[in-house]
């Protein structure tokens, strides 16, 4: 069955929203993770300042994804949230925790340590479960009668755990390159010093994940996905690898703008790799775009919301980043 034009429009819209979410919330979650690795209050305050105008808007994209999935692909919405019941719970509570910690740590004096830990732990947990969900999706999700047919801990396997750790390191890398881009002085030096280690970590974990995939966690689904990365599609993983290499080079040369741009490129290329592996499935390897799409009447009705609202949110996002462009002041 071929997906309709409207179904492809929404699949594309959701894919772009996921990518935007990963890049934007990725750097602020990453800064949150790095935040937990220093005790220096001056550094912490400037880290917070570097993401203050952005983080809440970044999370907007998560709700755009959830709302669009429910409206356009209810079957995917249902199976995904059923399969990741506990990870989604952890992610939502993690995001609430860090959001509250962000706003309340400023005024707190006695309880600041508590909020600081909350900010770090919330960022870490939200990131880990996002990464684990990617790994579990690649292993395939059992579906019966349009519902998830497994248990709430099915996702917990060596491979998804490794992808979870990988994303923690990946977001931390994105966060470190963001700090390089947005700050100067000691904090920038500190962030530069961490980039090579985070890079090495990402590469090692990806290698371990690959090794796990072909040994203990080998499933037909993973293999099938692997076979789709052939021919011209090989360009995506190659671009991702080249971009990661470029991050290391740019960090050595201390070119402030490049590490973030190249890390973003590697995330985009990794996303394209995953999309190629899954195509045309939305829930591997049970629901395709055509299977999962809502009836045309629903897609059409919601289309009007999409063409009006998504550009407005995009323009607003760009506007906020433009207004707060440049290095964060030391004040």
């Amino acid at each position, binding site marked *: 069955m071929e997906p309709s034009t409207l179904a492809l429009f929404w699949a594309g819209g959701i894919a772009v929203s996921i990518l935007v979410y990963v890049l934007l919330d990725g750097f602020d979650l990453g800064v949150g993770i790095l935040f937990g690795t220093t005790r220096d209050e001056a550094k912490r305050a400037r880290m917070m300042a570097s993401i203050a105008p952005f983080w809440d808007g970044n999370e907007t994209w998560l709700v755009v994804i959830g709302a669009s999935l429910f409206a356009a692909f209810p079957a995917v919405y*249902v199976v995904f949230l*059923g399969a990741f019941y506990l990870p989604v719970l952890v992610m939502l509570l993690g995001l609430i925790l860090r959001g*509250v910690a962000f706003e309340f740590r400023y005024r707190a004096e006695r309880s600041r340590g508590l909020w600081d830990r909350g900010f770090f732990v919330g960022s870490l947990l939200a990131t880990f479960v996002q990464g684990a969900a990617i790994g579990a999706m690649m292993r395939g999700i059992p579906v019966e009668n349009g519902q*998830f047919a497994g248990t709430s801990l099915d996702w917990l396997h060596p491979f998804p755990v490794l992808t979870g750790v990988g994303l923690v390191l990946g977001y931390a890398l994105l966060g470190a390159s963001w700090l390089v881009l947005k700050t100067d002085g000691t904090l920038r030096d500190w962030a530069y010093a961490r980039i090579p280690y985070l890079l090495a970590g990402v590469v090692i974990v990806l290698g371990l994940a690959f090794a796990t995939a072909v040994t203990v966690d080998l499933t037909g689904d993973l293999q099938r996905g692997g076979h789709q990365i052939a021919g011209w599609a090989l360009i995506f993983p190659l671009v991702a690898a080249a971009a990661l290499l470029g991050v290391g080079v740019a960090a050595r040369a201390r070119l402030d703008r490049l590490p973030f741009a190249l890390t973003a490129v590697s995330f985009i290329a990794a996303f394209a790799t995953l999309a190629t592996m899954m195509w045309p499935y939305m829930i591997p390897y049970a629901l395709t775009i055509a299977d999962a799409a809502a009836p045309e009447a629903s897609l059409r009705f919601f289309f009007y919301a999409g063409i009006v609202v998504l550009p407005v*949110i995009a323009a607003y996002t760009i506007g906020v980043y433009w207004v707060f462009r440049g290095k964060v002041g030391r004040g």
Partner: protein
Amino acid sequence: MEFDPVILSRIQFGFVISFHIIFPAFTIGLAAWLATIEGMRLFTGNPIYRRIFDFWLKVFAVSFGMGVVTGIVMAFQFGTNWGVLAERTGSIQGPLLGYEAFTAFMLEASFFGVMLLGRDRVSPGFYLFACCMVSFGTMLSSFWILANNSWMQVPLGHEIVDGKIIPADWREIVLGPVMMVRWPHMLLAAFLTTAMCISATGAWYMLRRVHYAEAQVMLHWGLGLAAVLIPVQLFFGHLTGLYVLKHQPAKFAAIEARWQTEQPAAEVLLAWPDAARQDNRFALEIPKLGSFIASGNWSAKEIGLEAFPAEDRPPVLIPFFGFRVMVGMGLIMLAVSWLGNLLRHFGRLESTRWFLWGTFLSFPAGFVAILAGWYTAEVGRQPWVVYGLLRTADAVTPSLTTSDVMISLLAYALVYAAFVSFGIWYIYKLLREGPAGPALAIPGATASRPLAYADDAASATGAAERG
């Protein structure tokens, strides 16, 4: 009660949505109030309206932020716990709730920012326009929620294809007659809730002998609005009752605690409904009034719960008491607002301290009425999640176990208790501090970070404590 994923998921949904709804309900009213006050400021040029506006804008920002954060959880509840519901009706409920989320974001990404940060950057006329658009946006948000819920109460405009409930006529789904009664009922409830909070805040300052001028404006406006709105609300409440009688007779019987079919039917004012005995204990009844309320004449036959198969009967206790608590709160609002205006007419409003205390203490009346009304509507719809189409017991995600939902329920309870009490604490601090100078710009704050305004409250209060 046996704990299974269905009952635990129901408790969880009830819990997270109860904590959510108090904030949007408050902000719908506050947005309209802010637009009104800004209009008055522009029209009269009186600076007191500016002080009142700046003060309530901070409260609005924090409540809006709380509503957004608790709303993120709501966006996922339908899929995590109500998988079969979301799968079977997703092509109807998904777009309706999607429109709500998108409406809220449109608002946040546009006029809300102007309202929070644009005072000195746009013309006064445009600023007022932005305030009106924010108010309009909050109402539009509630429109989609009510359209969705009204469809669950009385499904219209759908067809069933291969077991899936899919849209056939969006006009009927979105603008059905039930929706046209329930949406105004909810909007009026939100306006009344805010009017009572504003009156109570005014009364509080009056009692503490601070911010006299602002307190007087708040009291006069709040009580005046409530006095006008409450009769309209009683009328829409009556219309809501009529739709229940027509489309959901079992819910109506449960609200009335009418176990047996009666002719003429008595009206049970108060009782302890006993489901085991299918009867009321300690009933306080007025003969024939039940027939009059439902049918408009004193001798009509009114059906009782016995007329429905046992598996189609809703529980009685919560609809019965929920309805009475809601009506009771309505009567309190009626009494406070009308008496207040009477006192004002005789020039004794500001000096009658017992009345000011009463007004202050009735601040939660609107919130209680909203929650009680929603419990009546939702529990009364049982055992259906989509009335007549899908049973609640069949709607839950099949892979969930009791311990899964127990974990999530406990986690939400814990985090919400902490988060929401902090939010309410900050709003309380803002209110206690009262109107001061103009709202200060907060570094790094944008329209998508309204909770930053809690910070303002904290520092302002901290300064006051030191001083």
